[in-house]
């Protein structure tokens, strides 16, 4: 039992006290500790994709009865690190027909929102970086900005395949954003809050002493909402079976065909960080955040529970990728507009009824 949140809190108290006793003003010390916290968060977000890439290669290898990366470090653990070094040292090629400025701006716009998005995520007890009142809306809003980065990448490359990838990305991401937001509305209605921390805390507790009070276990509404959220999250992160924007067999690699070196690495980082963000959101909204289960209370700290559940959802994402074939673009759009959207509206109406019943 080791809760990270109070320990970190205490450490920052000590740090502020040290700075103030050495002649720093109280405001400046507060600002300094906030800057350090933000840097820790950014560093964490930058490291997570490396873990995820390794996980993806290993999981896919085991699903295809291969070994995966084995040479760099024990069981190839350092493989992504080596890949990162390779990508950083590579030459940055800008195609002759490309729009230089847009080509430069695209990966930056795609990756910058990711770091901001993790601010309201409750990583465990006392570990929410910024407990925003509009947390869920904030994440949806800011992560939508990355779509512009993909569009810029498609336009700025000066390549018709990239352009097609960018157009497809715009259509797909804009469409799937709608069921994704709608699927979360039942959760917000039920708990009456948009702060991820509040929602995760409200799901602690047991029915009859056994079944956790997580939103996914609420009959009918919980399951529909979770399924729609999961499917549209897979589509939002551009992963197979919804990887139409980068479909390598028809569009070479879509919007990131013409990107190499560090710029390509940034696109990659954004994609995997979004997979982790979607899983973390799913954990906080539907799986009770840092709430433990099966084991008696207090054996594992809340942040370990949170990470365990998040990585279970990440594994689901990887599993989808290596199981389902890619959808055709028209079927993809039909699935969104004619199936996911109506069902999420039905779910909202059902939840409204249940909220009314609860109030009686």
């Amino acid at each position, binding site marked *: 039992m080791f809760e990270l949140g109070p320990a970190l809190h205490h450490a920052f108290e000590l740090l502020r006290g040290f700075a103030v006793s050495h002649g720093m003003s109280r405001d400046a010390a507060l600002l300094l500790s906030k800057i350090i916290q933000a840097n820790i968060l950014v560093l964490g977000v930058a490291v997570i994709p490396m873990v995820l890439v390794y996980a993806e290669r290993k999981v896919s290898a085991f699903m295809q009865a291969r070994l995966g990366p084995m040479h760099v470090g024990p069981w190839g653990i350092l493989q992504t690190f080596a890949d990162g070094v390779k990508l950083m040292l590579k030459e940055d090629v800008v195609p002759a027909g490309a729009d230089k400025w*847009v080509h430069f701006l695209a990966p930056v716009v795609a990756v910058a929102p990711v770091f901001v998005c993790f601010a309201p995520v409750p990583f465990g007890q006392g570990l929410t970086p910024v407990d925003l009142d*509009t947390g869920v809306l904030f994440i*949806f809003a800011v992560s*939508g900005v990355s779509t512009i980065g993909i569009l810029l990448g498609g*336009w700025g490359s000066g390549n018709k395949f990239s352009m097609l990838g960018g157009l497809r990305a715009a259509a797909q991401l804009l469409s799937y954003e709608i069921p994704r937001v709608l699927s979360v509305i039942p959760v917000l209605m039920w708990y009456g809050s948009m702060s991820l921390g509040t929602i995760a805390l409200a799901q602690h507790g047991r029915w009859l002493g056994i079944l956790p009070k997580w939103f996914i276990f609420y009959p009918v509404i919980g399951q529909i909402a979770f399924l729609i959220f999961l499917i549209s999250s897979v589509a939002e992160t551009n992963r197979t079976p919804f990887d139409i924007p980068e479909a390598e067999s028809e569009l070479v690699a879509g919007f990131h065909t013409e990107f190499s070196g560090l710029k390509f690495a940034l696109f990659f980082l954004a994609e995997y960080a979004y997979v982790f963000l979607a899983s973390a959101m799913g954990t906080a909204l539907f799986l009770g955040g840092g709430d433990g289960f099966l084991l008696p209370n207090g054996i594992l700290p809340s942040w370990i529970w949170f990470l365990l559940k998040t990585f279970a959802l990440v594994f689901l994402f990887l599993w989808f990728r290596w199981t389902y074939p890619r959808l055709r673009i028209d079927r993809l759009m039909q699935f969104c507009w004619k199936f996911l959207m109506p069902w999420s509206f039905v779910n909202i109406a059902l939840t409204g009824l249940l909220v009314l019943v609860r109030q009686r």
Partner: protein
Amino acid sequence: MSPSLSSLVFYAFSAMLVVTAVGVVTLRNVFYSAVSLVAALTIVAGLFVLLGADFLGAAQVLVYVGGILIIMLFVIMLSQQPRDLLQRQTNDQWIAGLFFALTIGVSLVRAFTYFVSQTPPDGDIAPTSASLGRLLLGEMLLPFEAVSLILLAALVGAVVFGQEKNA
């Protein structure tokens, strides 16, 4: 946030907003001016948060940057031709337009000196989402429903205009 820090942020945002807004109306490449508009509207969202409207800031980014501007970039990508970059992007009356805009701008700024003495209200900025929701479904219910009708009409209209055989 202390008053001096928030005014510093405000002046930085204002300067960036004016620069990007000028970029929107003067850049020759329409794609560039759309990117400039993305920056401008994001800064406006920041201003909303600074002025105590946290929900509106998020809604602004969600609807404008994540929605309207993506459609706009989409349409620009579909309709721009390479020769557009070689053509003049302003019409013949740009001097008259500049004069008109300057007149309006100067007179607006002069007229607003009426409010020069207003200072920011005391007290911390409270979250607005819950009370905004109550207001929208309470006193503002009729306009709220009217707006949903407008959105439905716009959706149907866009589908009708977008059909291939009507074009």
